[in-house]
């Protein structure tokens, strides 16, 4: 009998929904059906059974073609390349578990590498703003249970985070928001009329690139000063109306996305949004949250912060201490300046996401991809090492966009012989220790990610 597994976590977007139900075949190997997931999440569960999935590492040959090699050979090549490089760059981690991120940190420390994650090209500016101004935030349940004024600034959850609005931010009926959407005023700030903007009570169609000016206008009005007749393409009356709604809210929530942190102004847009959140707290209660993209892209920010003190762009090449300064130690900057001599792309697709020039620079040196699937990066790599799919074939901790840790189950067994990210990085680390004749530094009580069985629960 096929079996339904419930409360499964979805390895897609930063909403990290953990209410997915998955129907698994008799032999526990195939996913037959899912419930509750959005179309993209559903696709991810089904994708693991794809017959095209690589199950062996593939090494680029002198003739330009890939040849399948053993995992031992792949581990050996990676260990040697990392040791030989003066400054390797290990980047990615949009789609893996915290156990993998922890394991790779040990490798990076040994390799004297730069360790960076997808935030570098995504919510990195938000980190810069958090460094400068803090982060007055909350968990998503607070939004569901309390928020009656919700701002979406430069984000479009209806497309990017399909279940966000129904689970947390617009529609759900919460403890103090028993009327759901009826009880919430939705304010959308976006230059386009997105599907989220269509749901809004107020849509401020901002002139692109002028977010900072509009935030400044909001703040100026909140402090009781006058503003010009038009700011960022928005009429003064509309700004006053929005500010009035905010002041009257009992719990104001600001969600911001790429439209805020990747238009002109970048970290400063987020920075002043945080200042605005602070200001609103003098009138009523307010919180702010970054719409993080991937289901565990908040994870590396957490793991590496507790291990090294920095969430991304960590330069571990100095040996004695970790250094971080985005602009210098950020992946794309390093690539463009030819500052690194080896590139490892893990659990993401730098091939698709990086500027083409950055990829051209990186391609001059060894280029390794660790990812369950074939992607643009894997296809231009010197070595592609497939791993198990976290959340489907591998359990582990993930951090939702609000930094709540969620313990993701596995629902089916991975392909035979294919390791998890964590196992792979531990093997690479052990090989590096063998090659350098050094003792590996394990903390005692080492254990790979392990979810309790249904019986144990």
């Amino acid at each position, binding site marked *: 009998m096929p079996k339904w597994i419930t409360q499964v976590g979805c390895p897609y977007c930063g909403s990290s929904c953990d209410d997915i139900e998955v129907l698994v075949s008799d032999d526990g190997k195939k996913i037959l059906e899912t419930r509750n997931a959005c179309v993209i999440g559903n696709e991810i569960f089904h994708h693991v059974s794809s017959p095209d999935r690589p199950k062996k590492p593939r090494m680029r040959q002198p003739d330009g073609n890939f040849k399948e090699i053993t995992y031992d050979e792949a581990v050996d090549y990676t260990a040697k390349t990392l040791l030989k490089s003066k400054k390797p760059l290990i980047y990615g981690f949009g789609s893996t578990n915290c156990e993998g991120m922890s394991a790779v940190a040990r490798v990076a420390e040994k390799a*004297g590498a730069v360790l960076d994650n997808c935030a570098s090209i995504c919510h990195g500016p938000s980190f810069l703003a958090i460094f400068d101004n803090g982060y007055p935030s909350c968990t998503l349940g607070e939004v569901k249970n309390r928020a009656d004024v919700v701002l979406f600034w430069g984000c479009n959850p209806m497309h990017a985070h399909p279940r966000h609005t129904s689970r947390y931010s617009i529609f759900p009926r919460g403890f103090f928001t028993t009327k759901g959407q009826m009880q919430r005023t939705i304010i959308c700030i976006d230059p386009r009329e997105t599907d989220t903007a269509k749901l809004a009570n107020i849509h401020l169609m901002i002139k692109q690139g002028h977010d900072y000016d509009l935030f400044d206008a909001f703040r100026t009005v909140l*402090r009781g*000063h006058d503003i010009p007749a038009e700011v960022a393409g928005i009429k003064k009356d509309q700004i006053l109306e929005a500010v009035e709604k905010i002041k009257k809210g009992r719990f104001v929530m600001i969600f911001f996305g790429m439209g805020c942190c990747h238009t002109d102004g970048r970290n400063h847009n987020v920075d002043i949004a945080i200042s605005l959140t602070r200001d609103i707290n003098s009138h009523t209660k307010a919180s702010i949250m970054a719409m993080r993209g991937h289901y565990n892209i908040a994870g590396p920010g957490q793991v590496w912060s507790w291990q090294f003190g920095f969430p991304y762009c960590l330069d571990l090449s100095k040996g004695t201490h970790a250094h971080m300064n985005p*602009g210098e130690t950020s992946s794309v900057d390093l690539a463009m300046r030819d500052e690194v*001599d080896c590139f490892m792309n893990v659990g993401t697709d730098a091939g698709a996401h990086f500027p083409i020039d950055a990829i051209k620079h990186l391609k001059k040196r060894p280029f390794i991809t660790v990812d369950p699937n074939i992607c643009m990066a894997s296809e231009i790599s010197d070595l592609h090492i497939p791993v198990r799919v976290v959340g489907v074939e591998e359990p582990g901790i993930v951090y939702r966009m609000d930094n709540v840790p969620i313990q993701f189950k596995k629902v089916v067994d991975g392909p035979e012989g294919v390791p998890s990210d964590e196992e792979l990085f531990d093997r690479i680390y052990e090989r590096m220790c063998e090659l350098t004749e050094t003792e590996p530094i394990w903390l005692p009580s080492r254990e790979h990610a392990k979810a309790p069985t249904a019986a144990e629960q």
Partner: protein
Amino acid sequence: MALVTLKPYKTPELYLECYNISPDVFAGKTSAEIAELDVREGKTTVKLGDFFEVKGNAGKTPEETEIRVSGDCSRIKYIGNKMTAGSITVDGNADMYLGGWMKGGKIHVLGNVHSFCGIAMEGGEILVDGNAENYVGCAYRGDWRGMRGGTIRIRGNAGNDIGTFMLGGTIIVEKNAFIHVSTHAEGGTVIIKGDVQGRVGGQMVKGDIYVLGAVQHMLPGFKKVGMTEREVDGMTAKFTHYIGDLGERHLKVKGKEVYANLYVMAA
């Protein structure tokens, strides 16, 4: 003054971190000892002499030490890091962190500088004949204590984020600046002799900004309060006086709020 000349003869494969090119480190050392100083290339430690021909012995003290780098330093970071006295001249370009955390002395770059020039500077002088990239006289990430003293003069253009979290000192950009000037500043003076695109004085608490050219986009938090004549960098001119950022908090002195000032030269 004793002159030490560094002549680059080899380009690094990646980038060199030369924390040691500073009168404070060179002081009291012979040219041979200076050539033995550590520099970092990625995870490897190499010697200054592996990349530079070193001539001349340093003075006894940093004050008595003059360093001349006769060649291009486009791939040399941290020149003049934390220096307190003496002087450094770079005949070409310099890479990131030129004069970072500098407390005294003088640096002159004949070419361009990359980002983070004069980061968290406390004193001394930096003169750049060419252009500067971003983050001139800024704070280190997360620190609310940016540039506290000294002078940075960029003869050419500068990029974004000039004087972020500035508390004191002076930054002069003789040509144009891009965006974000004196963001979060609580003191100090920034003078832009050319044009600025926008976001001048955002979240600024205190301090002065002079723009001798045009500000393309004024922030809504800045309010015109009148006209004034001011002396700026040796010249006197008429300025339109704005106060702001009205959206930001401000200190109160005798019950009256003290705003930051933005002076834009009257056309």
